[in-house]
Structure formats: structure tokens, C-alpha cells
């Protein structure tokens, strides 16, 4: 493997966490919702830029390419990544409802075409609450994966990472090419500066179609979406702190029956 690394950073655009999500007739209605770049993916963009800037100097970064698969509005997430410092962007534009496994097949095809060495993607997508994309991309390419990564260095033709496990964390060594899923704790993503936002407008953002990458079909269908909020009692316990605390303990034991 050559010593320069080409990085793909995969992005989604998702409803802002503060947005009020509604459902109507069994489907989520995103009308009027503000969208943002998925926070988990943003750590991947930042990490790619840090690697390029020499955060770990053992390998040079040839190029950072931001990639998105989704509807037209995803372009904004790509513009954000370009404004942060990505070199160029590829948007596979589609309104097709693809599940994470089908998405992974398309993104793997993009990675093959690009000749990528390292793919960074968020550990969990904030729209589908899915943690499948990174692992599915890795398997589609036959690459190793470091998931839930909190530390990353490139050394020669491999990676050293630290990542979270079921009950703690461990250090990993894995060869390139590889997929890394990113999460909070890896870095603090930068804010795009105004000059960089202006500069990003002139950077290449290639539009591609699903058909160019094989257009795989989803193997699962979403049948119904509902907002299910539990009715809450909203009972405020008044009185002096000591008295209120005692009454609360009594309510939890006798009324809610959650103290045993």
C-alpha cells in the first residue's frame, strides 16, 4: 500500500435533535423540520481533517471526500463538510427508501470507484437510530472495522484505535483499507468559518444517480411509524424540601410501586 491515504467521510442529513417530529397516517411527517448534518458523522469529517492536518504524521492524506446518499436536501450536509475543509463531495441523489444494508452496498460501490483507503461514518444515524451502516459497508467491501471509536491514528498501512466494547473499551490494530465508525469523544468538530463557507461554494460537488451504483433494493419495508409518548402524571410534590422528599418516597413506594 502507498503511504498516502484517501479518506471518504459518509454523511447524513437528519432532523435537528430539537425538532418536533410528527407522525400522520402512520408515517413520519418532516414538513417544516430543520435538518442538520448528523452529529455522529460530523466527528468523522473532523477526524479526516485532523488526519490530513497531521494529527498523526505517519501517513499523509491524499484527499478527503465527503459522500452522501439520499434526497436533494442532503446537499446541505455536504456543503457543511466542504466548509469544514473536505476537498470535494459526491452526492448520490435519490428519494428511494433504502435500508442500511442496501445503502451500504451503494456506498461500498462509491468507495471502490474512488479507491478509498479509509471510510469514516457515524456510529449511529439519528434518523433511523441505526448502528448498521458502518459494519454493513465494511462487510460489503470485505474490510475490517473499528466501531464506536474514540481514538484513531494512522500508522504506515494500518490503524491504531481505541473503541468501546459491550462492557468497556479496548485498543485495536487493523490493516488498511478499513472502516471506522465515529462517536462523541473522538474529537470536537470545528465550526466552518465564513471565508471557508464562501470557498466551499466553489468546491466540486458531483451529482450521481443510484443506477450508476447498481440500485440495490431494500430487503425490509417500513410498514408504520407512530409517535408513542407515554402519558405522564406530571405530579409536582410541594412543601418544604424535607417534607416533599418524604412524600415523594411514599408515592414511589405506595402509588407507583417502584420501590421495593
Amino acid at each position: 500500500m502507498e503511504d498516502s491515504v484517501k479518506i471518504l467521510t459518509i454523511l447524513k442529513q437528519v432532523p435537528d435533535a430539537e425538532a418536533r417530529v410528527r407522525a400522520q397516517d402512520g408515517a413520519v411527517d418532516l414538513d417544516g423540520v430543520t435538518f442538520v448534518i448528523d452529529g455522529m458523522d460530523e466527528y468523522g469529517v473532523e477526524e479526516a481533517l485532523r488526519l490530513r492536518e497531521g494529527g498523526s504524521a505517519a501517513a499523509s492524506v491524499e484527499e478527503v471526500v465527503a459522500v452522501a446518499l439520499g434526497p436533494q436536501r442532503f446537499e446541505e450536509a455536504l456543503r457543511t463538510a466542504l466548509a469544514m475543509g473536505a476537498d470535494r463531495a459526491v452526492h448520490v441523489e435519490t428519494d428511494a427508501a433504502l435500508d442500511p444494508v442496501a445503502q451500504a452496498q451503494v456506498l461500498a460501490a462509491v468507495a471502490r470507484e474512488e479507491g478509498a483507503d479509509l471510510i469514516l461514518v457515524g456510529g449511529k444515524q439519528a434518523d433511523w437510530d441505526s448502528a448498521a451502516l458502518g459494519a454493513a459497508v465494511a462487510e460489503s467491501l470485505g474490510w475490517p472495522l473499528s466501531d464506536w471509536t474514540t481514538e484513531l491514528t494512522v500508522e504506515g498501512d494500518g490503524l491504531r484505535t481505541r473503541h468501546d466494547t459491550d462492557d468497556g473499551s479496548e485498543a485495536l490494530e487493523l490493516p488498511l483499507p478499513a472502516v471506522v465508525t465515529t462517536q462523541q469523544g473522538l474529537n470536537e468538530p470545528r465550526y466552518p468559518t465564513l471565508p471557508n463557507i464562501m470557498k466551499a461554494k466553489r468546491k466540486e460537488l458531483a451529482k450521481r444517480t443510484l443506477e450508476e451504483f447498481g440500485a440495490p433494493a431494500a430487503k425490509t419495508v417500513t410498514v408504520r411509524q407512530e409517535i408513542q409518548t407515554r402519558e405522564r402524571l406530571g405530579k409536582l410534590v410541594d412543601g418544604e424540601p424535607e417534607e416533599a422528599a418524604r412524600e415523594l418516597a411514599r408515592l414511589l413506594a405506595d402509588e407507583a410501586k417502584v420501590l421495593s
Partner: protein
Amino acid sequence: MLLIVTRAREGGAGKSDLELVSAARTLAGALGQEVGAAVLGADPGKTASDLARYVGTVYRVAAPELEPFRAEPFTSAVHALVERTGAQAVLVAAGRSGQSLAPRLAVRLDAPLLEDVTSLSADGGSVSATRFTYLTRVTETVRADALPVVISVKPNVFPVGEPAGAAGGVEDAPAALREGDGRVKSSDRRSAKGGRVALEDAKIVVTGGRGVGDADGFGRLVEPLADAMGAGVGATRAVVDAGWRPYAEQVGQTGKTVTPDLYLALGVSGAVQHLSGMNRSKVIVAVNKDADAPIFKVCDYGIVGDVNEVVPPLTDAVKEHRS
């Protein structure tokens, strides 16, 4: 066969394994399939013999490469077993390891993936599941129309399965590893588990927010109440970012999702990102001095007051109730 897949554990089969048993059983009748199990690891003996009390057949897959968990050797081993048994569904627990195994298996089997499911049903050759989406604000029903299907099961949702009437058989199965399966090297393993009950398994969770004041506030207020209740300790992102508590305790969008019977939020304002990690708790209690804090909109019981004044007498009262 509906195949539940788990790791060898020193202590034998655990709660999440038995949750998989009951998840698989919900599909067994409608699909006309029996439930089997695969236990993977360096020494699967004890976990396998435990599970034989619950399912018809247990496959012991022993290989040094299967310890500790790494997704690639696990994928090869399970893939081979599915081919061999003709399993119609593979079920794994949706912890971090299961969430990296399940998508790989789905891709390798060219099978649909139902991820992090909270309920399951089958009808003819289709399997439907519910799962949470949009930061747990939405409950979605998803259907897979082709078998086999790969399913990761959300922990702490399904009941623990009961032993079956007759004990099942235990068989050895080859690991069938592929070249390169060992290329990810693991070292310096650290367990984040302290002496306290694990956050994900806790029936009660006591979480502190910025309103707790500082790291000492956790030791003075949150931990004593948690210990009095036999509860796990949680923290908000602000608290973790400030370095007062470890990331392993973070509840919310970028931390853990918990669904305990009782969730106490102390000095927690209730940002949406935090709510997404706990809004499925059965009973929510909030203590905060700011009466306008959003946490009060989702609580069952609340006290508007200073945590420093409310929590110590609450801890005493809880101790009295439990003694």
C-alpha cells in the same frame, strides 16, 4: 431452526441470552421452527450446557480466535452454521458486539436485517418487528419478507425465557474461519464496570445533571441515593463533557438508552438529546430548582427544589422504606 447466537461467558448463560430465547420463541410457532442456540468462544462449555435447558439444540463453536469478540471470525462461524442448519432466523443481542455482527451477517447471507427490535411477530414467511427511530421519538414497524432474517434484539425489553420441559442436545460445530478473520488485533481491554449495577441492566437509574454542581456533588448526592435504591448511576452529556463522570455513564442520544422501571433525574434540565435516552422509562422523577425546566414536562413526579436540600432527606426516606 431459529438460531440464537451468543458468546461464551465464564458465569454461563446470562440475562441477555435468556431474553433472546423468549424473543425467538415469539416467532417459533408462526414459522413452524424450533429454537436452537450457538455459543461461540474459546470455551463455550458452561454457557452451552446452561442454554440446553432452554432450547432444542445447542451448537458449541470453540476456537481461540473467537475470544475476545471480533465481528469477522464470528460472522464466518455463524454463517457456516446457518448454511449447515438451514436456520430461518439468527437472533443476537443488540449490544455493541451484536450491532457490529448483525449487519455483517445480513450482508454475507444476503438476508434482511431487523435491527434493535423491541417486539417481533411472524406471519407466513414474513417477520415483522417494532423498533425506535428518530432518537426514540418514533416507534416504527418494519417487515422482512424473505428468510433467513438477521435480527438484533434490544436488551432489557423481552422477558427472560423459562426453561423448556425437556433438556436439549449439545453438539460441537466447526468455527469455519476464513483467511484474514484474525486481522483485527485487540489489546489493552478495560472493563468500565464498577461495583455498582450496570446502567443498562438497572431497574432503577439515578442520573445527575449540571444542577448537581460538581463532581463532588455526585459523591454527595447521586451515588448515596443510587446505592440506597440499588440503582445504576447515569450522567448527562454536560456532566460528561465537564469531566465529572465517565462517558460509560452517559444517558442520551450519544450515550446509552435506558428503560428502567424508575428513572430519577437530579439537576437535569431535560434537553431533547437526553430525553431520547430515557423517555421510555416506566416512571420518571425530576428534581430541579428551575420550575420551567423541560424535564418537568415528561416527569411523573417532580419536586421543584434544590437538589442539595431535597436529595439527602429523599435518600434517608428511601432507606427507611427499604429496611
